[in-house]
């Protein structure tokens, strides 16, 4: 089991870095080449959502990305520090431009449409999106 953890200030320009790190670590772990685009997009969506939640909620702690390689799966966890109640409020009432209103939901739609194994949890300490992909050679779950 190996772990790479990344923490970044909730700024849009760092989301690309998170995508690049995630796809590099996924490739190294042995995620199928054809799934790397998915990994990149899903991590980008999860991080963009976390950045938006932090910015709207005025939270200045970093966004956390944990990449974990186990025997059979490669897992990614993206955590925000916005309590679930506040996240809902930020999503509903953000003073965003018209096309931004649906983007958070669309981001989740992209993740759910893309990743077979995904879990979205909210809590008082913030929300987490957990996703995982099979590793090449591991039996399909």
């Amino acid at each position: 089991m190996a772990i790479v953890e990344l923490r970044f200030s909730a700024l849009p320009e760092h989301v690309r870095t998170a995508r690049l790190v995630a796809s590099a670590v996924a490739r190294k772990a042995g995620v199928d080449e054809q799934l790397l685009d998915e990994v990149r997009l899903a991590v980008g969506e999860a991080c963009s959502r976390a950045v938006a939640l932090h910015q709207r909620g005025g939270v200045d702690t970093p966004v956390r990305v944990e990449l974990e390689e186990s025997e059979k799966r490669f897992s990614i966890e993206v955590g925000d520090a916005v309590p679930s109640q506040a996240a809902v409020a930020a999503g509903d009432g953000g003073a965003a431009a018209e096309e931004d209103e649906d983007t958070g939901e669309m981001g989740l739609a992209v993740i759910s449409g893309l990743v077979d194994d995904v879990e979205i949890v909210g809590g008082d300490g913030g929300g987490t999106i957990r996703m995982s992909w099979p590793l090449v050679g591991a039996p399909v779950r």
Partner: protein
Amino acid sequence: MDLSLSTRTVGDRTVVEVGGEIDVYTAPKLRECLVELVNEGNYHLVVDMEGVDFLDSTGLGVLVGGLKRVRAHEGSLRLVCNQERILKIFRITGLTKVFPIHASVDEAASATD
């Protein structure tokens, strides 16, 4: 890689050639470009996405916003895209039903509803 944008006119259409990555950081530039075009009176847009390496939901949001704007002027927004990985994002979000997607700029520029 950053986002590159260039515009040109083909017949009565304004073609926006987009290159690079459209994400949460770069999407505002695309939004600005589309808003400016509409404000200048260009209501029939073709967004050429053949040079796009990455597109996320923020980018989709901007395209939907552009569509809303041109439609307010009875205009159109057509996309040019042949890349499977980009098309997949339109499919899983159901946006293939919202945007006319063409195989070439010529096809998009001559298309009518």
